[in-house]
């Protein structure tokens, strides 16, 4: 990579605009330095003025403050100039970016044009035609090949396919499997239970009798007799 870059380096990648930006930034740096210097000066002057006042030298302090005031104005002005410079450099940098964008668009446009040139409508039509021909040919071959099988064979193939599909599907639960026979439950007596044990047993027997007739057929009679 170094080699490639090394060779490329012969062509400087620095443009005239870059030089201009550098000059502006350099100017800005100088202004910043100046700004700093005045700032320090102001601070010092303030200190000195304070000292003079303490010593009772009012006039000199006033003079100093006047100087300070002037320098403050200078400071203000340098700030404005700094702003201007910064604006200018930003403008230049932005313009450079805009140029790059336009260049990019231009190149993209050219590429697109070239691509479009490479793809003429006739070509597309021709290719589509050829494809169609190809498909037709394929179908012809298909029919020729499948022609070897009789229609019965075809049916067999289809039915096998169906059965394969049926196997691959999950089983649907059938209706009759769904309702499981639940044994009927005895009814809950609506009234609180009273009376002797035999009455209850009788009731149980009766219930059982009605639900499953056979095994307890004789029992109610016995109970009744006992009662």
């Amino acid at each position, binding site marked *: 990579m170094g080699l490639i870059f090394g060779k490329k380096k012969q062509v400087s990648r620095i443009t005239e605009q870059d030089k201009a930006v550098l000059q502006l*930034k*350099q100017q800005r*740096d100088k202004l910043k330095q100046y700004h700093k210097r005045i700032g320090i000066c102001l601070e010092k002057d303030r200190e000195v003025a304070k000292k003079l006042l303490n010593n009772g030298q009012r006039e000199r302090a006033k003079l100093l403050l006047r100087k300070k005031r002037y320098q403050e104005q200078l400071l203000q002005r340098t700030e404005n100039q700094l702003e201007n410079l910064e604006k200018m450099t930003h403008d230049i940098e932005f313009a450079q970016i805009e140029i790059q964008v336009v260049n990019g668009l231009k190149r993209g446009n050219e590429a697109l044009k070239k691509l479009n040139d490479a793809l003429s409508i006739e070509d597309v039509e021709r290719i589509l035609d050829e494809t169609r021909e190809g498909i037709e040919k394929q179908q012809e071959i298909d029919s020729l090949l499948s022609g070897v099988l009789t229609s019965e064979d075809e049916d067999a193939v289809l039915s096998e396919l169906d059965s394969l599909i049926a196997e691959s599907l999950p089983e649907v639960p059938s209706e009759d499997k769904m309702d499981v026979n639940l044994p009927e439950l005895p009814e809950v007596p609506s009234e609180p239970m009273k009376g002797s044990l035999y009455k209850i047993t009788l009731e149980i027997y009766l219930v059982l009798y009605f639900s499953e007739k056979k095994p307890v057929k004789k029992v109610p009679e016995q109970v009744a007799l006992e009662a």
Partner: protein
Amino acid sequence: MADVNIDWPWQYSFPPFFSLQPHTETRSKQIAAWKTLILEYFKASKQSTLDIHEATNLPVFNNTAINRKLNTAALLTILNELQNSGNAAPTDKQKNIWEIYWHTLEEWGNIIYTYIMNIGATNSVLTIYELTQGDDVQNEEFYGLDSNVFIKILKALETQGKCEVMLFDDQQGVKFF
């Protein structure tokens, strides 16, 4: 810059440290210790240049507490060692003025280039002043770095194609790519 705050190694208060030892193994250890000490000192004091005739003015080469100084010949030997590891270079043929790089130029190059990438300043022009003295770089390690050293770092970066140094008249700038 006499009041540089660094952790002085124990050797610094050890008188034999200030004269080169004849025994090879001891000597190589001694020189290694000196190298670290010098780099540490220059890093802490943010200095980059060293005049070997003024060296004894620096506390690092002159421990007044134990009354020991490093003589010029020994200093030269150590500086040559530093040069071998890329941490120093003489600026004149007489080898009187040396530049000390507590990061080698390549390391510096990487640090600066990473910074440039981080702030997205590739493809724009920057001045050396704003990179070494500007308000934006106050927290960067290369803040306050000697501008001559800085330009050397940039030149090294230039050979990698990562930037191009612009030096016309009194203008010093760089464009990163």
